[in-house]
Structure formats: structure tokens, C-alpha cells
């Protein structure tokens, strides 16, 4: 198998403000993100040779991308639940490596707030099956499926519920602090641990502020052959690794799954580290954007991604390891928690933050001398997951 390290570079990115964009349709979000990326890369729409559009609910087929009025080029819609945005980037990268094109667009969009309901429209109730056997089985919410992890984590590591919830609250507080420094984030408010602890319960032990925002938004990347990158800009970002690992519901079917880790996360990150030549992720990775759909997942990800030893994320949370000033800042832009989670856009939104950080353009959130950044998405939930990891760097080699 060929290593894709340093063969493709990102030369332009765009991201809309996330949030309840009542005034904007899918077409507005797509145009806003794409044109920021075009301008950033210094390309014209006519330069794009192929495009991948990722969305979960906001349009069928690549016709979803028609608002950009690209003229008869190959376009494909991709979908991989919450890993959809990263999937678009993966497809575009592979096409360039295969030599099918030299300049491609990867774009993700989700318009959730036209549903007329609270929450995510579509199979938000996990028992509903997309393939037609809908509505037969049990109904439980997405927060519940992550609450199982919190219940079990607290049980296995002997944390009293209040103790465990306080740890999770610190993650929400950190991400809201980061988001408050980010005008494009859905929410811009700071939170206190007490506010998080006192918020209404959604799925015990998770409360309102343990859950990410339901948002509208889009994000886009222009990718090119690495050897062409410097002709677009002086500070391109090189793709070091892309990996995806999909479960077969093993954890939902078999008793040997423990609900305190997600195997898909572990395997996707290992594969990515191998491709990028990373031996010690905690030391070598400068910053990470991870899938904090619920605070408990970010906590478990510290361990799944090898940032903290198994069962010891607590010590790192208490030490501030993952804050902006910490040893390994995580979710510097606010994360799903505060930046918001338009499903199909999230993977590329994460990449947008890493891209800006690696270029030194992250404003008040800028961390010192970053070299390598990681994005991580999880589609599905504990037991039934689709995990994606991307690693990028600002230098070749």
C-alpha cells in the first residue's frame, strides 16, 4: 500500500459562520464557504477540475453543489454520517494521488435548522433504520447513546456521578472559552463549571452543556498536487495521513465491548500515526480538533487517540493539558460543542482551524509554533462507529 504522506496539499480554505442561519439556505452556505476558499487559494471557479460535496441530510447527489454553477466537471456527493466532511476531503485527496485531477474542491454543508423541530432531523432516534426497517426497534436519543459511555466510565473508574460530571463540565468550559475567541463559532459565550453542572439534564449523566450545538454551516478546501502547492501560496498545508475505520456494530451486538473506549477511534488513529510516522502522538502532535459531540466523547478520545494513558484522562483534564495554553491544545476553535455541528461540514470545519493555526493566522487563539495537527470525526456512536483521522503539517517531511 502506498503512503500518501506529502503528496497532496491544501492551498485554500473557507468556512461560514456556524449557527442558526435562518437567513441562509444551503445555496448561501455553499457559496460563502467555497468563495472564501477560492479567494484564499487564489483560484477561479473555472480552475476546479473535480468536486466532492459532503452532506448527510441537506441534499441528494452532487446536484446539491449546483449553486456554485461549476461548468460540467465531475462531482460526487459523499455521505458517512458525522465523518462526511472528512470523507469529501479523503475522496479529493485520493483522486489527486491517482492522477485523475490536479486541483479539486472538497466541500461539506448541512442546513439543519430548516427542519422545524428541535434536534437533528433524520434518524436521530437510533432505532430508526435508514434502510427501510424503520421504527421497529427501540427509540433512544443520540445523547443517550453517549450517556452509556459516561455511565460506564464513571462506574469502571469509580467516579461519583458529581465527580464525573464535574470533569466533563471542565471540557465544556474549555471549549466555550475557545469558542468565545472565535467570531465564526455558533456560540460565543463563556461558561462556568457551575453553569454546566446546573443545566437541565438531557440524558443522565449528560446535561445540556455536555451536548454540542445543532447548527447550519459549510466549510470547503481546495486541494492540489503537493509539487504545485507553492505556486498557489507560500504556506500550503500538507496532508500527512488520512484514515477511516468503520465498525460492523460489534459493540452493539457483542458483550466483549466495554463502552469506555471506541475501537474505531483507536484503530483509525493508529493507522494515521503509522502513515504520518508519528511514534508519540502526545509529544509530536501540536494540536487536535476532535469530535466532541458530547463532552464524554472528548474525554474518552484523549485516551483513544493516545494523548492520555487509559483511564487517566482525568489527570490531564485537571492539569489543563488540553487548554489553549496547555501541552496539547484540543478544539482550539470551540469544537462541536461551541463552534456547532452541521454534520456534513464539521470535518472540514476542523481542518479549517488546523489550517489557520498551522499558518499562524488563528488570531487570539493562536498557539505557539504548531507543526502537526490532527482532526478526528466519529459518525454513529459507541458500538456502531465510523472514525476518521486526518493529520496535516506545515512542512514537508
Amino acid at each position: 500500500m502506498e503512503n500518501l504522506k506529502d503528496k497532496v496539499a491544501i492551498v485554500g480554505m473557507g468556512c461560514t459562520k456556524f449557527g442558526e442561519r435562518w437567513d441562509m439556505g444551503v445555496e448561501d452556505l455553499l457559496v460563502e464557504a467555497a468563495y472564501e476558499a477560492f479567494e484564499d487559494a487564489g483560484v477561479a471557479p473555472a480552475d476546479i477540475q473535480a468536486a466532492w460535496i459532503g452532506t448527510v441530510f441537506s441534499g441528494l447527489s452532487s446536484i446539491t453543489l449546483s449553486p456554485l454553477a461549476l461548468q460540467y466537471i465531475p462531482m460526487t456527493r459523499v455521505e458517512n454520517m458525522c465523518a462526511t466532511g472528512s470523507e469529501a476531503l479523503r475522496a479529493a485527496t485520493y483522486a489527486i494521488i491517482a492522477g485523475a485531477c490536479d486541483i479539486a474542491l472538497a466541500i461539506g454543508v448541512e442546513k439543519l435548522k430548516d427542519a422545524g423541530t428541535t434536534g437533528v432531523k433524520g434518524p436521530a432516534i437510533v432505532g430508526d433504520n435508514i434502510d427501510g426497517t424503520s421504527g421497529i426497534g427501540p427509540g433512544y436519543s443520540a445523547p443517550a447513546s453517549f450517556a452509556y459511555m459516561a455511565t460506564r466510565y464513571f462506574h469502571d473508574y469509580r467516579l461519583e456521578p458529581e465527580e464525573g460530571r464535574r470533569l466533563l463540565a471542565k471540557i465544556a468550559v474549555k471549549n466555550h472559552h475557545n469558542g468565545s475567541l472565535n467570531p465564526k463559532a455558533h456560540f460565543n459565550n463563556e461558561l462556568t463549571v457551575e453553569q454546566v453542572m446546573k443545566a437541565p439534564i438531557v440524558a443522565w449523566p449528560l446535561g445540556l452543556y455536555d451536548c454540542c450545538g445543532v447548527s447550519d454551516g459549510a466549510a470547503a478546501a481546495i486541494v492540489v498536487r503537493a509539487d504545485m502547492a507553492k505556486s498557489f501560496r507560500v504556506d500550503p498545508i500538507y496532508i500527512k495521513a488520512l484514515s477511516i475505520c468503520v465498525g460492523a456494530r460489534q459493540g452493539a451486538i457483542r458483550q466483549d465491548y466495554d463502552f469506555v473506549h471506541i475501537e474505531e477511534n483507536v484503530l483509525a488513529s493508529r493507522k494515521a500515526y503509522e502513515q504520518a510516522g508519528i511514534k508519540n502522538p502526545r509529544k509530536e502532535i501540536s494540536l487536535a480538533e476532535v469530535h466532541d459531540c458530547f463532552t464524554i466523547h472528548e474525554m474518552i478520545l484523549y485516551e483513544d487517540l493516545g494523548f492520555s494513558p487509559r483511564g487517566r484522562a482525568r489527570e490531564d483534564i485537571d492539569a489543563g493539558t488540553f487548554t489553549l495554553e496547555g501541552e496539547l491544545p484540543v478544539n482550539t476553535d470551540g469544537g462541536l460543542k461551541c463552534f456547532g455541528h452541521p454534520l456534513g461540514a464539521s470535518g472540514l470545519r476542523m481542518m479549517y482551524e488546523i489550517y489557520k493555526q498551522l499558518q499562524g493566522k488563528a488570531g487570539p487563539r493562536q498557539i505557539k509554533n504548531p507543526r502537526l495537527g490532527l482532526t478526528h470525526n466519529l459518525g454513529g456512536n459507541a458500538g456502531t462507529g465510523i472514525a476518521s483521522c486526518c493529520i496535516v503539517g506545515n512542512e514537508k517531511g
Partner: protein
Amino acid sequence: MAGIISIGAYVPKYRLSLEEVSKFWGVRGASGEKAVAGYDEDSLTMATAAALDCWQRCQEPVDGLYFATTTGPYKEKQGAAVIAAALDLDRVSRTVDFTNSLRAGSIAMRAAADAVNSGSAQRILVAAADCRIGAPQGRFESLLGDGAAAVMIGSGPIIADIEESYSIFSDFTDLWRTEKDKFVQSAEGRFIETEGFLPTMQEVLREIMKKTSTAPQDFAKVVFSATDARSHAELARRMGFDRKQVQEPFFLQIGNTGTAAPLLMLASALEEAQPQDLVLFAGYGDGCDAFILRVTGNIGKIHGQASVKQKIARGMIINYGKYLNWRELVPVETSSLPQRSEPSVTARWRERKSIAALYGVRCKDCGTPQLHPIGQKIRVCTKCQSKDNFEPYKFSDKKGKLFSYAVDQLQPTKNPPGLNGVVDFDGGGRLICELTDYDLDKVRVGMPVEMTFRRMYQGQGIINYFWKAKPLEE
């Protein structure tokens, strides 16, 4: 000769305090409690639970399932077939719905005895349940309760011989519901009692005693249904039965459970019976069926399961608002959350065995029991990837433990907050499912659970039955 082989009962967990109802309406009213079927229960699910209880006391195969109720879930479509599928009965089993009469339970018992005596069946399981609704603020709201009971009739091993039976019909209009009536309608109370219930019952009980040359004092227990406590006591007085002989009708504890009531009382009587006891049993409604039963030395076989009295004592009080909502007696705001998609009739049919009796598979290569979380067929083993090499494996009768859980405010339920979690079955296999009939204060990791057949949410008028986990009663 046909006799009773086993009995079973089911009393829903919830109770409504009649004092609270009176207080709500600001009227002087009844005291006591009534049993209330959960928001996810109906006559069919309660009958299934009673039938399983009956079966657990006597694991003999049956040739048929008779379902007796006046509150079946469908006007057109058989309830007995749904129950038989949930019980995983053999495909050649006979299924019949006995309905429209409060006497349907005893009618079904007689029909079952006839089938056995004719030699066409070895054993028939009769399950009776009702969930009748009285108009709010009315007498029947206080009077009626929900419950189920089951009786297995067969040629052996018998716990009570049917020594005699006697029936009459009567076209007497006392209680009724037409297709348009949600609530039980009734003629004047005094008229019902003095011209209907009392003379009909007296006639039949005297006649069966005459046929068997028995006298009131010969019976260890007398078990009969009635509309209310007053008419029940009046019949006992007129017949000359001593208070000690008369089976407690449970009116104050659970209410009048309709078709289930006489069978529920019979189950309780037999749980306390001694060998050689003579029992007089009668069901009333559009006439009367009476039976004389002789308890045999096998009666100890039915012990071991929770008794009717224990089931009645396990109630949990709900408030009146919840009751009104569960029975759809008040309009309530619809959820602002996205609606679930409709159940697919064709998908339900394709996976009927998995849905009806909670069948999964066990891999013949690695031995792993597995159940698909959204009711799909498992073709390839999730553990060893062996293809199409499975044997059927039933999960509905397996107990399990709660591996993890969430108290879910977003779960669609009429008894919020919802509770769902990961159930690990004893012997292997896992299911992420809804829980029901829980006491939130007692929920914990490792809690023992069992499976129960319930109504899931309803779409397109189809009643979507499936299995939930519930805490195992200690």
C-alpha cells in the same frame, strides 16, 4: 377428562389512587386503588405476560392459544395470533379471539375443555385481559382496573379436575360499548343487580350444585366475578356462602379487571388451595359459566412464581394527569423533537420471528449468540465472519443485566424520563433497548432485567409490538 394444568396472572405495575381522582374533581368518591396498564401496555401485551407466567409454572407444549378480551387492539386482525407469535408457539397451533363479553374468559375455558375432551387438542392456553376505560369523573372510572390472567386447560398433569360445568346465555343489557363508545356504558345500577346479575348467577350456581349434589358448605373456595363489591357481597349472602369461603375479588386493590377478573381470582384461589379442595368457579356476562373444580395432589407445581397477591402488592402510584395522558383522555402538546419514521409492514413481516419472539442467532462456529440492534437479519457472524452458519437463538426468555444506561429526556415516552440501556443477556448476546416499569431510584449498572412484550410507538395505525427490558422482580 380435561382439567386445569396451570394458571398465571399479570397485574400492571401502576396504581391510581381513587382518592386523588375524587380530590381532583372535588367530589366525594370511592376509596382504594385501581391497577393501570402502562402507557406501553394493552390487553394483548398483558395477556402475553399472563400466558408466560402460566407457562413458566408448567413448561408443557400447547396446541392452541385462546385470547379473551373486550378490549382487543384491532377490530379486524386477530390478537391471539400476535400473542402466539410472541410466545413462539408451533405454527399449527389454533388461535382464537373470544371477545365482546365479560364472560369471554370462562367461555374460552369451556371451549378449551371441549377441545381437549374431544381429543382434538392436548393442551390449550387461555389468556384473558382487559383494559376498559370509564368516563372521567364517573363511577366506572373508579371501578375498572387493568389486568390479565391465564389458565392452561389439558389432559395432564392436572392441578384441578373440572368435575362439572354449566352455562346459560342471557340477552340482558347491563353494560355495553358500541363501536363508537370509548367508555363503558351502563343501564341503571339497581336494575343491573336485581334483575340481571343476582338472579342469573343464583340460577346457574343452584343448578350446578343440584347436578353435582353439592351444598354451599362443601366448597373450600367460591370464586365468582361481579360488577362491584356490593353485588359481589350480596350474591355471597343470598347463596349462603361463608365469608371465609369467598375468594377476595380485589376490587379495592386493582378494580374490576373485566374479562380477566374471574380468572385472576381463580389463579389466586388455586395458589392457596390444598389437594382435594372443591372449588366453585363462575364467570358472569351475557349469561354465566359455572365450573366445579377438584384440586389434585399436583397443585404444588404452580408454586414458585410470584403469587397474585404479591403481584397486587407491588404497585407504584401514578398521578391522575399521567393516567389521563396514557389513556389519551386529554389532548397534550406534541413533541417538538423530530418524529420517528413509520414502521414498515413488509420489514416487520420479513423479520417477524426476530420481532415477535426476539429471536437472534447463535454462530455454529464460534458459539456467539447475537441479536441485531435494529432488527436486521444477521448473515455473517460479527465475531468470526462465518457466513450463514447459524442456529436460531431465542432471547425473549433470557434474563440479563444492565451493562450501562441513560435516563433519556428525549426518548419518546408517555412516562418521562425515558430509560434505555445496554442489556447483556445471561449466556451471551447484547441488546441496546428501552426499559420500562422501572423505579429510577433503583436503576444501577448490573441491575438484573428480563424481557417484556410491549407496544412501541404507533404509526399509520399499525400497532408496533416489540420487546423492552424491565427490572427483574425480586
